[in-house]
Each structure stands twice: as structure tokens, then as C-alpha cells.
């Protein structure tokens, strides 16, 4: 029999404080203080307790590793769970607590955290490779693909995992996104991809009555990427933007993408890795340029968020016709609005590339999407 899954629990007790009092997030101690001054009440702990109560109801006595006090143990007190509390060297009330807690749980297979995108970044950035993470949604911003849809859904998913009940799928490349809160308070949405993480997803449980089996979106993406590679033209420089979707083109061509940065290809070979704007200009000098892009989840940003190294001059050379956009239908369907946004820093250029673009959603499968200036 397989060793049972070892689950760790971390709570960011400050997560979500900023939301109710209109602060758009709670990154950093100053904002926490400001939120508390505005009368915010911490929600993360009680929400995590809801998740854990669901787990305890489904799997009484389930084993759980956590850390002391408000960072974990306080919220599972009295629940029917076999909790092992591990000490932390020092509690600071900052992100450092999350980092220390992750390190204290290095032997866990899955770390469950209560928080938002900021906490997701803190956890994902420090878990050992191969360890899964799962977010109990408690934050203001939750754009990362590592959150369950509700605390109860998180608890139920954990119970499914412990009971070996299917179907649970593991996603090894869930995107951990965060938004620059200062920019957001100033009215700009600036999502950025920070990490890729392993996370469990509730499987379909779909009846096969009429819908048939669910689509394998990863395979759809690789199909789209393979088609892009087949169509690559000799002598053209292909700038490959950040993210899993654009990176799939590198993979289809037999290269490992940088994922968090920008690469470039020419005649099938990689000519720049994790390149700066200047390096991209240099490698593309004298060549036609095409730019391979993904779409940021939920907001639908194409250019100007997390890929600023792809500068206005390069974009203008490629033109709208030179943008090769990849995004699976589930990702497009999840956009808040049926739009792709650009903010290149050059309003004229934004206007020039506004209009319709064909997003490649699979092999010989495309979706017309409207590009608008943000």
C-alpha cells in the first residue's frame, strides 16, 4: 500500500484584510496596519477552519502537520484531526512566517495554505520541487491557478486525496500570478506570472451521458504549438513570450522554455534566452519578426503585463498580423470579459494593434478575439 499523503497547513492570518476595507490587497505590514485601522476583521483563519471541518467530517482523525497559533494550529483546534504542530524559530507577522513554515514542512507532499495570491507566491517560491500546493481562498486577489473554488471544496478535495477517491488530477504547471498592488490602487491591473506550481484539481465527475470525456487541454495546447512550429518560416525571428502557453512552442520545437522570461528562435534554433529588450532588438535586427504570446489568466492581457521586455519597436515591426497568440478554450472561456488587452506604453501602437486576432486554441483550431487598449 502506498504511504498516505502527508498534508501541511499554513495560514496567513492577515490575508484578505484589505478587501473589505477597499485596499485591493494586503501585501506588506503597512497595509495590514492600515486595514486593521479601518476596522478590518481577519477572515483567513475562520475560512481555513471551514475547509478543515469539511476534511474532519469526511476523514475523521486525518493526519495534518501545521505550525503554532494563528499561523495554523489555532484554526484546527477541537476538530477531529491528528494534528502535529511544529515550532517556528520566530514569529514576525510578515511573509517571513510563511517562508519559515514552508521550510518546517519540507517532508510534506502537499502544503495547504489559507491566503491569496501573495501567500501563493510565498509558498510556491519556497516549496521543494515535487511538493504540491493548494490554496484555501482567503485573499483579496486570487488569480493563481492553485485555489479551490471555496473552503469547503478545498476540504472535500483533501478528503478525496486521502481516501484515494477519484478523480483528482494533478497539474504540474499551475500558474502562480500576482498583481502589483500599488499599480492596482492607482487603477492599473498588472498581473504577472511568478511561479509554476504543482496542484491537485478536483476531477470532472462528469457523467458520460452526453458530454463524453473531458478535453485534455494540455494536449490541445501542444497541438496548437506543434502547428506554430510547422508553420515557422526560414529567416524569421520568433520572440517567445513568458508563460506556459507561449513556452509550449519552444517545447514543440524541442527546446526548454524559460517560462518566466522571454526567449527567441531563428531557423529552429534558440538565439536568445531570458532576453532583455535590448537583446531581443539585437537578435531580430535585419529579420522579419513574429511574437508568440500567451494570455494572462482571467484578465486577458496580451502585451504590457509581465512581458515588457517585448518593447513597442519590436511589436510595431511584427504588427497585429505578426502576433501568434496561444490559449486553450478553457482559458479563453474563463476570461472576465471576452477581450484581450494591450498596454504597450505607446497609445498609438495600442490603437494600431487593436482589432481581431486569431488565438490558436488547438491543432487547426482558432478563436477570434478582440484586442483592445487597456
Amino acid at each position, binding site marked *: 500500500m502506498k504511504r498516505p499523503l502527508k498534508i501541511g497547513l499554513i495560514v496567513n492570518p492577515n490575508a484578505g484584510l484589505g478587501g473589505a476595507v477597499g485596499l485591493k490587497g494586503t501585501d506588506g505590514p503597512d497595509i495590514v496596519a492600515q486595514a486593521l485601522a479601518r476596522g478590518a476583521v481577519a477572515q483567513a483563519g475562520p475560512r481555513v477552519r471551514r475547509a478543515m471541518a469539511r476534511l474532519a467530517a469526511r476523514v475523521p482523525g486525518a493526519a495534518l502537520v501545521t505550525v503554532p497559533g494563528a499561523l495554523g494550529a489555532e484554526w484546527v483546534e477541537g476538530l477531529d484531526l491528528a494534528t502535529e504542530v511544529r515550532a517556528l524559530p520566530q514569529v514576525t507577522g510578515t511573509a517571513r512566517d510563511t517562508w519559515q513554515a514552508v521550510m518546517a514542512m519540507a517532508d510534506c507532499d502537499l502544503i495547504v495554505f489559507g491566503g491569496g495570491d501573495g501567500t501563493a507566491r510565498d509558498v510556491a517560491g519556497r516549496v521543494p520541487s515535487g511538493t504540491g500546493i493548494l490554496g484555501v481562498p482567503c485573499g483579496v486577489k486570487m488569480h493563481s491557478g492553485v485555489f479551490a473554488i*471555496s473552503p469547503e471544496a478545498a476540504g472535500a478535495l483533501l478528503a478525496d486525496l486521502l481516501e484515494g477517491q477519484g478523480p483528482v488530477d494533478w497539474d504540474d504547471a499551475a500558474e502562480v500570478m500576482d498583481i502589483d498592488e500599488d499599480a492596482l490602487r492607482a487603477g492599473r491591473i498588472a498581473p504577472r506570472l511568478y511561479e509554476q506550481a504543482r496542484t491537485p484539481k478536483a476531477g470532472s465527475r462528469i457523467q458520460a451521458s452526453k458530454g463524453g470525456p473531458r478535453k485534455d487541454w494540455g494536449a490541445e495546447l501542444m497541438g496548437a504549438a506543434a502547428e506554430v512550429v510547422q508553420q515557422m518560416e526560414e529567416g524569421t525571428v520568433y520572440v517567445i513570450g513568458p508563460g506556459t502557453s507561449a513556452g509550449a512552442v519552444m517545447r514543440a520545437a524541442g527546446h526548454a522554455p524559460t517560462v518566466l522570461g522571454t526567449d527567441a528562435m531563428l531557423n529552429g534554433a534558440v538565439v536568445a534566452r531570458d532576453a532583455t529588450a535590448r537583446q531581443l532588438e539585437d537578435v531580430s535586427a535585419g529579420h522579419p519578426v513574429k511574437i508568440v504570446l500567451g494570455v494572462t489568466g482571467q484578465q486577458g492581457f496580451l502585451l504590457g503585463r509581465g512581458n515588457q521586455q517585448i518593447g513597442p519597436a519590436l511589436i510595431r515591426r511584427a504588427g497585429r498580423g505578426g502576433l501568434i497568440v496561444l490559449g486553450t478554450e478553457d482559458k479563453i*472561456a474563463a476570461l472576465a470579459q*471576452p477581450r484581450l488587452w494591450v498596454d504597450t506604453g505607446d497609445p498609438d501602437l495600442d490603437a494600431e494593434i487593436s482589432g481581431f486576432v486569431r488565438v490558436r486554441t488547438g491543432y*487547426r483550431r*482558432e*478563436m477570434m478575439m478582440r484586442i483592445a487598449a487597456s
Partner: protein
Amino acid sequence: MTDLPQFHAAKWDEPVVMEMGRPGGRGQHFPAPEAEVSEAVGADLIPAAMARKDRPELPEITEFEAQRHYLHLSQMTLGMMGISLFGTCTMKYNSKTAEFATLRPELAEVHPYQHPETLQGVLEIMHDFDGILRSLSGMDQFVFQAGGGANAAYTMACVARAYWQDRGKLGERTEMVTSIQAHPCNPATAAAAGFKVVNLPLEENGYPSLDALKAAVSERTALIMLNNPDDMGIYNPEIKEWVKAAKEVGALCFYDHANFNGVMGKLSARELGFDACMFMLHKTFGAPKAGGGPAVGAFGCSDELAPYLPTPVVVKSGDGYALDDDRPKSMGKIREFWGNVPQVVKAYAWARAMGAEGIDLASDISVVANNYMDKRLSEIEGLARSNPGVSAHRMEMTRWSLEPIAQETGVGTVDFANRMADYGIDPWWMSHEPWIVAEPFTPEAGELWSKEDIDMWIDVVAKICEEARSDPEMVKTAPHNQAIAQVKGDAFEDPSKWAMTWRAWKRKSGEADTARGAA
């Protein structure tokens, strides 16, 4: 609130029929023929080459035991006679009168290899039903070969391929344009026929924008394939401009009438400019459904496309009817013979019984029933209607979402569907993929169900909302009142585990003849 059914399905713990019985068990014992009879007919009635050498592997049980077994199995199903407001499927009663008509020897005992002279009655019904569908669509010719809606969509893709090939332009006309909420069979069949698929997303109005269509179509477009209304239940009022934009670049236009119920008798595909359309006789026209089985996708088109239709086509010839096989430009065949003829006869019976006025009234009732449902569902806390900003009334169905209650309780649409079965109500239809609405469900009342039935269905939904709040775990582990609880789906994705026949079960399970357990 209505009194909800206190229901519990029967649960019979008995082996599969192949494991039942005993050596020598049989249904009937026939006497040996008398000597004079044997002498008169001879001993070797079955030619040696056709006679089997071994005994067939059949369960050796009595007729009574066989009937009891199948009665028990039927008791463990919901029986397909319950309240099933299964959206996108247009569930209708399949009349016993029509069923009886197809059991008559004039139909049940004929074969398509007979000479057409001996099939005049059946051909007349096919021909007259073609006429009825022409009057509902404005098309010039229908064929019934396709075994379902997807098969009819594939017919369109093949007709388009033959059309462009005939013009020497198949190499240029490589794309099919459709909407993300058109039935998935449209992109799937176009892709199977070799076309590249270009999808249009829904925009603010709840249907794709004309701008997106205009940006998508070009001299590369072979055809467009659309439903209207699509599964959101919103009618696209710009449809004429859509067809015009496609025609301006020379593309063919196909109207997938899967969602015909709300508009039947109200519009004509041809008048809207379409070149071809498809009706599902097993939905809209009251003939039975069957998963990939004896359904019919009736495909109709204009005179311009008719030369490319699959053969044979039923035509009037002098005083009688004939099968026209001599169509050199035909795309070939979609299936063998003329289609599932008993279904055509049942649909013909339905249409004749309804009459033009009845068909018109039925579509009104289906729209009114859906809008009544919309109103009552909107009063249940935790449900959200898709496209809340669109004020236009929905047609015969509406896409709804459980997102609010799922956020609140963690109970989602699959859990609701499972729990519905505990009340003897057929689990609802969620959505075709991709799910553009979270935790979706898509009810469609149609003209069949009474107000009492519709109220009962809604009351069950409201009750499950209460249960999701008071005892979410109970809902998530439903069904509890059914013969079997939740089915683990993994086996359906593993060909080494599923078995459709006893022989396959024995092979895959590695068991000998003494195999136990269910296939």
C-alpha cells in the same frame, strides 16, 4: 412548495444474465416434427456451410427467469418516463401510436434491397415528410441518411467539401467558422472533414459579434455552421447580416437546427439566407433518442447544393416514387441505405398529428414554459442566470449557473445532478464544453410537461439548495436512494477496463468461464 416524492429505487443484487441459470434451462421446449413433416421438408434445412459447429454461449434460463431479471434491471433505472427537463435535448414523449405504426409488417418486414416497386408505401412517407420539412425550412431537398445530429453536421461538411472540390477551390477554401456555443459537433465534424476550425466567442449580448464574424470570414472560408438560438437560449437577431457577411466572401451557410423547438413554424432557414439546415427527428419531431443509435439527422439543402447530397435520394417518378442513385457529383454515402426509416415514420406521424398550427403552438408553449421556469428559478437564492445583463427573453432553454451556491457551500452542479435522482427526477443537463459559465445547468421544459411537473422540478432544485446549506456532505455523496451510488468514472477512460460484451469482459478481466461480477 409541492410535496416532493418520497422515492427509493429498487435494488436487486443479482448476477448478470450470463451467470444465471443451470445446464438444460431453456425458454420453451418444442416438440420434434412428425415424421411426415420431416420427410416433406428434408433433414438439412440449413446448408452445411452456414450451420454453426459449436453451441452458442447463451445463459440457460427459463423464459420466466429472463423476464424477471429484465424487470429487475428496469426497476433500477429512472425509466425515461420521469420529469427530465434535459436542455439542448428537447425531450418529448414518443407516442405509442407512432411506435405501433412502425411495427406493422408493411414497414417491419421490408428490406432496402427489395425492388422499389415493392416499397412504394414507405417511399411515399419519406417523400411526403421531405415535403413537410421543406415547408418548415424553405429548402429544396431533404435526405434522412444521417444517424443523428452530428452525422448530419458531418453531411454538411462533406457536401461543402464536394461543392468546393467541384469548383476546383478546395485547396483555397480550408476554413469553417462557427460559434463557441454552437453544438460541438459542428467544429468536430468540420475538422473530421479536413477543415480548419475558427471559433467566435460570445460577447456582451450573449452571442458572438458581427464584427468578429466579419474579421473571421475571408476567401479561405468554405462554410459557416451556426445554431440560433444557441445553448444560452438567446436568439441572435443579427442573423441575416451574418449570412450576408458570409455570402459576400462566397462561403456556404449551414443552420444547425438542434435548438429548433423555440422557433419552429416561426422562421425559415432559407428565407434567412442559409444554404442548408439540419433537423433532429429524435428531438424536435417526437421520435425516440438513442445514444448514437437509431436517431435521424434530417439534412436539407438548396437546389444548388442538392447535386452533392449523399445517395440515394427519394424522388417522385411518374405516379410513384423511386430511389435516385445516379448523382455523379454526390459526396457519396454518410451511412448505408436510406437512414433509420422507422424514425422517419414516427416523425412523420408526429408532424401529421400536430399539423402546422400545432407545431406553431408547441413552439410558443416551449418558450412560455421556459420563461416561467426562468422566473421561478430566479427567485431561488444561490442560482444565477447567464448573461444577466441581457434583457431579451430566452427562447426554449436558458443556461443557468450554480456559482453563488457553489461558492457558499462547495456543492456544485454534478452534486446537484446526482441528488436529483434521489427524488426520482432525471439528473439535469449541465453544458456542452467548454463551460463558459461556472457550475452550469441548462433546463428545457418544452411543450410536453405540465405546469405541475415543471413546478415539481423547480421545487426539487430549491430543496437541494436548502440541503446544500444544511448538509452539504449529504448532497456531495448523493445519490442515496438509488440502486447504485456514485460511479467511479476512471474505468470509462481506460479501455483495458470497460467491456461492452461478455466475451470482452472475460478477455479483459482474465477470468475463465466461471467469471463473477458485472461487466
